[in-house]
């Protein structure tokens, strides 16, 4: 009788300790990524004068968070609307720019930051090639100077706030919500889709393209028949400006996939999810994997890598699209993509809590 009693005491004590630890973990400020992002945000804001700070740091609300675009700067798209939130790199001193990019880097993974900057560099390439023939007074501008950084809300380790980094073909929208940081919605794109730096070929969205072709070609005939849509898709279905929409899924369900096909699909999805800092990205990948059987893969266009094809991945925890722009299968030098999280764009789940 003595042994079970002692056991009971031990179990009770252990349960209590676990409970206290869990409660402490909930109330303790999350260390690590978010704290580093807060420090980077504060450091960036400290480099700015008052007028710059008012531009760079706005309220975080339903009106401000949706101000992002895939388009180049220089044109007001809607009457009364802002083009983008924040302060552009071209209006910053070198010290301010370094602090701004340190903030961007603090919210992203190392690979994600590299990808974002490769997109910026592609646009700089576009600026270099297009500027010589630009008509004086033409408003549209490309290039690194036209990328904006903004902070929505007060940087906090517990309350939601947002970091936006965007310009032509890039809209990184990271909502930091304690430990539940969210990348969605985020737009990536590239034009040119490949360029050289010091003799090295850079393809900002090359891995997305290659993994997708790998997956579609790994499907058997029955799966391919389901995956390949019988119509052409010429742009993103849920691109910028379609927040909160959800379309009926189409394509082949990953429930039919072999372990190797599932691994390829996850690697493809990781190309977007992995832009975010590793801790939140890993948690997100687990969530996506748990809903993988309910996830669909759809394809439109040729299946030979090197040709332009549209694809979409849609599941309970993820929605992403990749759409080459323009007509014809040889149009591979101008890409638009979108990454969304159904019911969790802008960390909606954390906001509801």
């Amino acid at each position, binding site marked *: 009788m003595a042994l079970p009693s002692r056991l009971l005491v031990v179990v009770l004590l252990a349960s209590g300790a676990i409970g206290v630890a869990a409660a402490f973990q909930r109330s303790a400020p999350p260390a690590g990524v978010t704290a580093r992002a807060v420090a980077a945000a504060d450091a960036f804001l400290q480099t700015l004068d008052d007028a710059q700070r008012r531009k760079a740091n706005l309220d975080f609300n339903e009106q401000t968070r949706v101000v992002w675009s895939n388009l180049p700067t220089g044109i007001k798209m809607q009457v009364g609307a802002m083009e983008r939130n924040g302060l552009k790199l071209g209006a910053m001193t070198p010290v301010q720019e370094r602090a701004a990019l340190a903030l961007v880097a603090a919210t992203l993974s190392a690979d994600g930051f590299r990808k974002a900057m490769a997109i910026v560099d592609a646009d700089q390439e576009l600026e270099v090639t297009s500027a010589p023939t630009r008509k004086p007074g*033409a408003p549209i501008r490309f290039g690194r100077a036209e990328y904006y950084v903004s902070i929505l809300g007060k940087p906090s380790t517990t309350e939601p706030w947002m970091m936006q980094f965007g310009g032509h073909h890039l809209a990184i929208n990271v909502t930091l919500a304690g430990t539940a940081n969210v990348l969605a919605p985020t737009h990536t794109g590239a034009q040119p889709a490949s360029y050289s730096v010091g003799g090295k070929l850079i393809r900002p969205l090359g891995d997305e393209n290659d993994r997708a072709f790998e997956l579609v070609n790994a499907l058997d005939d029955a799966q391919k028949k389901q995956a390949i849509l019988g119509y*052409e898709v010429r742009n993103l279905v849920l691109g910028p400006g379609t927040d909160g929409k959800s379309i009926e899924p189409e394509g082949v369900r990953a429930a039919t996939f072999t372990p190797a096909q599932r691994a390829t699909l996850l690697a493809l999805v990781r190309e977007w999810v992995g832009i975010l800092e590793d801790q939140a990205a890993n948690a997100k990948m687990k969530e996506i994997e748990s809903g993988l059987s309910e996830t669909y893969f759809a394809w439109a266009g040729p299946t030979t890598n090197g040709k332009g094809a549209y694809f979409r991945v849609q599941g309970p925890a993820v929605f992403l699209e990749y759409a080459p722009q323009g007509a014809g299968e040889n149009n591979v030098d101008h890409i638009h993509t979108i990454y969304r999280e159904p019911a969790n764009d802008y960390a909606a789940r954390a906001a509801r809590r």
Partner: protein
Amino acid sequence: MKALGAAVLVLLAIGVEVSAHQLDEYLQATRVAIARDRVTLEVDLTPGVTIASAIVEILDANADNIIGPSEAGAYGRAVLSDMVVSFDGHPVVMALEQIEVPTIDAMRHGMGTIHVRATGSIEAHAGRHRLDFVNSHRRDTSVYMVNALVPDDGAVDIVSQSRDAHQREFHLETAVRPGWATLLWFAMGAGLIGVVVVGTKRRTEN
């Protein structure tokens, strides 16, 4: 070739030498939402650089460089008149609910999107239904997209969707689940039949 030549001329004229987006196409992306009592169309219209002037000319009917609400409304209704929606084979009259027009500047650079929202009334009782949508607006220059939105109405399920290769024609099969009132009537009817059967049986036995 002719279109390409025109595209280059227009690009040079406005000073954008790099083709940012579709130049000589009118991109029309439609999202279709269905509920038991209505069909909603959300149409995003993006004219490319080379055809934007023609669209602006129609939109800005009095050529004052301002697109007023009545001009925008007239254009929205003209777009809708080129779209045919039918539900179970019967035409659905789509009424313009909202139109948002971008700046003329944005359109002239091929980067402005006109947003049109229209609704039409239907009566979808429990069972299978078919919705057909055909978009014939500016067929000469347009590229089409059409998708079904996940229904907000929990009683409506999308069973299947199909399109032609150019996404001009769209067919949606839906299923409406019986509501509580229908189920209640069904249960009451079944109960009544039961009472009648039992009563008849007893009378026969007596």
